[in-house]
């Protein structure tokens, strides 16, 4: 449920986010303050190394922040979307919606 005051993001297709695995990762992160590495791995059915590789790409772009914490005596890796990552994701979603809306308006006029 989003705030009614939230501004509509500018459509901006993001090639870094669009590939399906990274899109899934960022989509998961967009609904959470932070998520444990294992949660993302299990939901996406990826290996640790495959997920680490995707995280590294997103972290390099400063779209995500990876934090190592100790929780209940266990070392955990937590990942969260940064402000720039959230902004890029929202722009990307707006761009996808614009593609769908444009296609629908064209087919309606035919």
């Amino acid at each position, binding site marked *: 449920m989003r705030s009614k005051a939230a501004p509509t993001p500018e459509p901006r297709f993001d090639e870094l986010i669009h590939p*399906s695995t990274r899109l899934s990762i960022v*989509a998961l992160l967009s*609904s959470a303050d932070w998520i*444990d590495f294992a949660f993302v791995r299990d*939901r996406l059915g990826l290996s640790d190394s495959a997920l680490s590789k995707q995280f590294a790409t997103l972290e390099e772009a400063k779209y995500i922040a990876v934090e190592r914490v100790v929780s209940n005596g266990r070392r955990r890796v937590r990942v969260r979307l940064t402000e720039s990552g959230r902004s890029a994701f929202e722009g990307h979603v707006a761009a996808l919606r614009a*593609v769908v809306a444009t*296609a629908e308006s064209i087919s309606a006029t035919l």
Partner: protein
Amino acid sequence: MAENIDRAEAGRALEEIEVRRRQIVAEIDVPAWYWWGLAAGWVGLGLVTVAGIPWLSVVATVGFGAVHSAVATRVIDGRHRSPQLSVRADVVSRHVRALIIGFLIALVAVTVGIALLADGLGAPQPVLIASIAVAIAVILGGPRLMAFVRRRAERSEGM
């Protein structure tokens, strides 16, 4: 690049985003131990009342309220069921705390109502009967209440 993807691809991407959002929505809940603890506390208060020691009833009620307040502030927002993630506040209904508090207030009223009814019917230990009945309602009704919260979050617009 956006102009290079077609409607079908954009639609698939939006569907994938919605699937992932729902996976987070599925995590909206309060820990199961909260409902069991609440139910145990309810029965405990019933037992204390049955003991017929007024000062003990007062101490137990105040203690229960204090412990519940301390615990509830951390768990009844529905965002921290799992230690594996924290659900964003804007994904969860702003009213979830009010819903749970309202549920508890209703249960207090139901407890009194059942106790009076049982007493009127001449049942032995009407307060204990009422507290056990409401404890069962807490264990069964609490998770249903949170399922309702999740359904509402699922239906709400994503981004």
